[in-house]
């Protein structure tokens, strides 16, 4: 630890704080407050809701909710949710209708007027925004007069009605030049000021596993109600489920995609879709959709209204104070492989500060690796050391860790990291059994030497999309038709690995890591020198 810390301290020390840092902060604070007032006063423009509804109806289904047709990897929120619908709208615009779709600013204005119910607001965009390209472009919207109604019956005191901000991201998804229509692909809200941001930790198109708990550092202001939900978009309709939002100190928490999806299409392609109610089983199929969370003064609205596919339009005299939404790809929880009969799924280890005890001599390998639950009964946090593998935390109480150990013997011990005298004492053994053959060995079996490497990537680099095994099959170099390409290690381990087996011997192993956007970048590779196996560079 000390080695890395001193290195980081040395490099970090190059950043010298200014002597007048606090004065600068104070001036910045004053400047921002002044800019907000100026921006609101100068750039405000009012959307006449009645006028915009007529144009907007041309792009919506007859029932008032967004029409839903078609499928495909198309990640947008508004006005269309599917590629087929967006293509129809593009054709309509090409024919001379709805020219406002070509203007990012007007599209944003209509979005906040119709979806959030705002009436007086300003739309601004950063200097240098390129409106002739495909985007994405990000526009800020701020209210002039906050949509704060009279106090609700039975409530006292002023409600928090400061100016609201919404950040809207748009992209040209059908055609990427100046003739392409803009679609809203991401929305973030800010209330009461721009630093209390309601924003999902996902980017458009990110994969979200069923049942995932979302944490957003956001404090719901007094007088508001927050509601969260998610919507599955099927071929014949959509289904929305709402989730309870829990405020936990400085963050809100809720679960997404925690329901199954059922679709019933009729022969003409219409029909409906539904999701089961709260407390239901996890999602059963992979499907596109979106997640959203909104804050509102209107309790009726906040208790069951989907901003994008709700059957009801936004009620009159109703407004959304802050909205965050992002289109994503929902996937079911990977189905677990039945565990070995003789061994538990989770190993139990007890540490008392001086000794380490393995309470379950064997543990069954799981699809994501080997699970070990450590009970630390001492009065201080300890570290957990796996000989020849690495280490982990063992805080006071119970803590479960998962590691990709191969089947066989693992040596481990708990220790006080600050009293480590460097002696290899106190190790105990745990036997990892893999009766179902989940683990695929990844040690190279080379007749001659091996080669390997670890490529560097620029910040923000995007990886290949899809399953890592398919990535190697598709982009591998030097593969023979008879080569067997499959996962290595555990199929669901945190950092997936893929191996190439030639004539029964492992001749190449590729390790991938998540690029943060649903893609996979190769972190490292090893291959037998005479195999000539590699992976094409990501372009």
């Amino acid at each position, binding site marked *: *630890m000390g080695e*890395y810390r001193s*290195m*980081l*301290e*040395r*490099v*970090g*020390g*190059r*950043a010298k*704080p200014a002597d007048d*840092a*606090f004065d*600068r*902060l104070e001036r*910045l*604070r004053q400047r921002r407050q002044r800019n907000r007032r100026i921006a609101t006063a100068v750039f405000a423009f009012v959307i006449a809701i009645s006028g915009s509804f007529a144009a907007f109806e041309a792009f919506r289904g007859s029932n008032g909710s967004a029409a839903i047709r078609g499928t495909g990897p198309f990640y947008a929120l508004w006005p269309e949710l599917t590629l087929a619908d967006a293509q129809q709208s593009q054709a309509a615009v090409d024919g001379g209708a709805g020219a406002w779709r070509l203007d990012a600013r007007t599209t944003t204005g209509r979005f906040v007027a119709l979806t959030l119910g705002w009436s007086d607001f300003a739309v601004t965009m950063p200097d240098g925004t390129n409106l002739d*390209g495909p985007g*994405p472009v990000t526009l800020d919207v701020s209210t002039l007069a906050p949509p704060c109604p009279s106090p609700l019956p039975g409530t006292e005191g002023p409600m928090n009605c400061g100016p609201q901000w919404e950040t809207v*991201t748009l992209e040209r998804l059908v055609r990427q030049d100046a003739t392409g229509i803009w679609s809203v692909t991401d929305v973030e809200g800010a209330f009461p*000021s721009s*630093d*209390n*941001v309601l*924003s999902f*930790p996902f*980017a458009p198109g990110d994969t979200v596993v069923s049942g995932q708990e979302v*944490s957003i*550092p956001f*404090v719901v202001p007094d007088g508001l109600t927050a509601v969260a939900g998610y919507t599955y978009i099927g071929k014949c309709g959509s289904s929305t489920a709402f989730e309870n939002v829990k405020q936990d*100190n*400085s963050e809100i928490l809720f679960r997404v995609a925690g329901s199954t999806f059922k679709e019933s299409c009729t022969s003409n392609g219409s029909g409906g879709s539904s999701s089961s109610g709260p407390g239901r089983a996890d999602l059963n199929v992979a499907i596109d959709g979106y997640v959203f969370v909104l804050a509102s003064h209107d309790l009726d609205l906040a208790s069951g209204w989907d901003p994008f596919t709700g059957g009801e339009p936004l009620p009159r005299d109703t407004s959304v104070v802050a909205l965050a939404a992002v289109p994503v790809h929902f996937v079911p929880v990977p189905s677990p492989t039945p565990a070995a009969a003789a061994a538990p799924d989770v190993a139990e280890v007890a540490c008392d500060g001086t000794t380490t005890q393995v309470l379950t001599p064997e543990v069954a390998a799981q699809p994501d690796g080997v699970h070990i639950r450590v009970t630390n009964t001492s009065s201080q*946090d300890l*570290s957990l*050391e796996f000989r020849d*593998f*690495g*280490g*982990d*935390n063992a*805080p006071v109480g119970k803590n479960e*860790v*998962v590691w990709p150990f191969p089947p066989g013997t693992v040596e481990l011990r708990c*220790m006080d*990291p*600050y009293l480590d005298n460097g002696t290899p004492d106190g190790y105990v053994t745990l036997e990892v059994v893999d009766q179902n053959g989940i683990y695929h060995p990844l040690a190279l079996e080379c007749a001659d030497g091996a080669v390997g490497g*670890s490529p*560097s*990537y*620029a*910040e*923000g680099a*995007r990886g290949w999309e899809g399953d890592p095994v398919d990535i190697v099959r598709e982009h591998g170099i030097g593969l023979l038709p008879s080569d067997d390409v499959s996962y290595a290690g555990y199929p669901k381990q*945190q*950092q997936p690995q893929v191996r190439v087996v030639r004539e029964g011997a492992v001749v190449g192993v590729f390790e991938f*890591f998540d690029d*943060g*956007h649903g893609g996979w970048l190769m*972190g490292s590779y090893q291959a037998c020198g005479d195999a000539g196996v590699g992976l094409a560079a990501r372009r």
Partner: protein
Amino acid sequence: MDRMNEPGSAVSEPVTAPTTEPAPTAEPPVTFEAFFQAEHARLLRALFLVTGNEQEAEELMQDAFLAVWERWDRVREMERPTGYLYRTAMNAFRSRVRRAARAAKRLVGCAEEDEFARADQRDAVARGLGTLTPRQRAALVLTELLGYGSEEAGEILGVKAVTVRVLASQGRTAMKEKLERSDG
């Protein structure tokens, strides 16, 4: 696999860096200015290590402190105001990365200047940092420099603890390789 040499103690405040940094006090700071004076240098260094850009680090630091300032009455009562500060800063950083990534989708090759990536050949540590992703750097800075446990670092970064461990491990491995290569 290298040993993940992670601090075993789950600390609630960043471990105080030796010599120059003020020690965390048991009593919460009385004024925002006192809190700022106690924390801003360390936060700036951490953000510099994460972003690789001094100007960006200063902007993020200012944004984070402004956010804390606006709700100082609430933050000062928190058990861990410093943790809240770092969380706010990392959230702002994450938001920037997210937007930059979106822009990079169509503007390949126009990444922001990273001082570490163009560091002098002799400065192996800085060049090592330049090979890490922003998330790897953040995990490394939080766990190694600031002494957060992976659970708390995960809360600050908005990811699971295991993700922090993996990111930090990747960071250490890459740094080690870079250093070994430069030694060799």
